């Protein structure tokens, strides 16, 4: 494992070539490798591996979508453009942000790079928060899957989207009260230096260069984000395999605890918001409609894999306040709706 700049360049090139040859060799022998079980693990760990690969393979297209949107914003959107479209009043920006979040078909794997990029481009923090919590739920694909999963009980469909819209605005507003327009992103010293020079020299570049930049940028950001996503997927896969759900189910007996249990589930399962409705409907035998709404609203806003991403890119104090606010607000709102709608 030689990856230091101090090593001679032939060794580094050689390492890369060997790695590539290994991949190609594995590619042509994928069936033999797997069927002969040269390497194997206990069934539980194979299940972990299966779920892990499932999440990673499934998430990569959406992560790519997120990093490409982010790099398009980076390369093509000038900072003053954003400022021009934002209302001057901080609270007035909340509602249009939620509406915009509903139009962008971006789910929770893709939203973190996009929001981070928008904030770096000068979007106020609280508007970014509205996107962060709203966009993964409020989008056409999620609406479709929720509709199909709960065709028998459309009240769940309506409460999910109603709550997501209202709560995104409330959470965004609360974040404004707490943090105003302070900078909550983590900046490394070299980034600050870069930011400086960037601001000074916004040289217009030719089109071909911009296209190349978009690709360079996207792949850099893929590596920046991907590591957190992969780590989160691994932890989620272990939880999915080793957590005995019956112990959690045993806790959730009344409306209060069952809502809490479903929110914990949503957090640790780290499902894609496009698919979580079907998982929720498989719980409909054992859980009340109200607690299913808790699962469907909380999961896309916060889960294990995006928590890791948030801690990597935002200041820890902000992430903790954000997580507490989202949890308390969603829980309270779901309990209130439960007593109004489902009783």
């Amino acid at each position: 494992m030689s990856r230091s700049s101090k090593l001679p360049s032939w060794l580094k090139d050689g390492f890369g070539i060997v790695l590539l040859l290994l991949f190609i060799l594995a590619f042509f022998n994928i069936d033999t490798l797997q069927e002969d079980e040269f390497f194997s693990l206990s069934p539980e760990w194979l299940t972990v591996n299966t779920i892990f690969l499932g999440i990673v393979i499934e998430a990569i297209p959406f992560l790519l979508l997120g990093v490409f949107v982010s790099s398009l914003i980076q390369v093509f959107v000038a900072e003053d453009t954003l400022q021009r479209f934002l209302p001057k009043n901080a609270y007035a920006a909340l509602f249009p942000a939620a509406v915009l979040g509903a139009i962008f078909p971006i789910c929770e794997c893709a939203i973190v790079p996009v929001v981070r990029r928008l904030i770096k481009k000068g979007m106020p923090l609280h508007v970014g928060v509205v996107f962060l919590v709203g966009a993964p739920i409020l989008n056409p694909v999620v609406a479709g899957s929720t509709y199909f999963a709960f065709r028998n009980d459309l009240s769940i469909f309506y409460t999910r989207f109603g709550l997501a819209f209202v709560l995104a605005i409330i959470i965004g507003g609360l974040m404004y009260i707490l943090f105003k327009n302070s900078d909550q992103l983590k900046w490394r010293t070299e980034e600050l230096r870069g930011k400086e020079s960037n601001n000074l020299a916004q040289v217009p570049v030719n089109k071909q260069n911009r296209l190349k930049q978009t690709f360079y940028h996207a792949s850099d950001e893929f590596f920046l984000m991907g590591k957190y996503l992969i780590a989160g997927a691994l932890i989620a896969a272990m939880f999915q395999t080793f957590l005995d759900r019956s112990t959690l189910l045993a806790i959730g007996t009344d409306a209060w605890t069952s809502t809490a249990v479903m929110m914990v589930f949503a957090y640790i399962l780290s499902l894609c918001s496009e698919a979580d409705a079907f998982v929720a409907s498989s719980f409909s035998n054992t859980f009340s409609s109200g607690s299913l709404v808790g699962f469907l609203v909380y999961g896309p806003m916060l889960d294990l894999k995006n928590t890791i991403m948030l801690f990597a890119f935002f200041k820890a104090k902000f992430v903790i306040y954000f997580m507490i606010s989202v949890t308390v607000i969603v829980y309270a709102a779901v309990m209130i709706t439960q007593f109004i709608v489902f009783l």
Partner: protein
Amino acid sequence: MEERKDYSFHAYLRGIILLGFALLKLGMIISGSIQLYIAPTMMPFIYGSTAILFLLGVIQILRSTAGDDTDEAACDCGADHGMSGPRYVQIGIYSIFLLPIALGFVLPDQTLNSSVAENRGVQFGAAEASEPQGEPDDTGVIQAEEGENFGEDTSRAEEYMEDPDGYMENVGEGSADAGAEEHYTVEEYYEDEQFDSYYAEMAEEYEDVDFLDIDEDIFLDMMTMLDQNIGPFEGKEAEIKGFVYREEGFTEDQLVVARFSMTCCIADASVQGLLIESEEAEQFEVDDWVQATGVIEETEYNGHDMPVLKVTNLEPAEEPDVPYVYPSF
């Protein structure tokens, strides 16, 4: 200069890792094992991302070989993406990316089994009962209705086969035959606003079919349809294939024939199945694949009405290459 070299080495290594991801996906697509991880509806995304990964990988490698024209190589976003930190951190970060590629190539594909099913909970019947189950119910033991009822239903099916129109008229009138009181027509259900029109149309379509072959394509829809509206299907013959699952409180002659269903990827797989009753049930172990043929009836389990297949023939079956079922939309 040293920094620049290091930078191009990172681009080179990243390019190779991107190609590794692309090759893994392509390999899975060609060998077909991708179906064990991803549902067919998501496949367009997988194809697209594989192509993009190849493209990005090639671009990265070209980028690393580009001369020392730094302006062109570095994307000008304020040195956002440099890889920093001591060497062991860098090795650790690249290992995170190599992990899924290595595991994907090397480890055997695993299909989910009933231990996972048990943890996730298996849906059989009573999809609409939304109250928490609470304490285990000791009245959950099912009064097996063999003998008379069984024979009666078979004869009803025969009656139907001999004279479908006459039989349907009989059932439609309802009062003509005392036993038909519990049978409803599809039209009655259609009126019921609780009943969703999708399954009503489906029920209409299958009402005239006297043998329900519950195969992969219609498995999930059939489970929901039978749960919601067993009326027109009571007494019909059906065949179903799946793995054996048992729950605490089952009698010796009961088991569930279950399938994992996948919406997007394997992480969201859930389990659905049909309760069956057969004297040979105890001969089969949990996780065995079976094919069951029998007659659909309604029963009560843990206080919920649900469909049950009174089995006339239960035999071992081969596990399909792709054991999962998918929603029909």
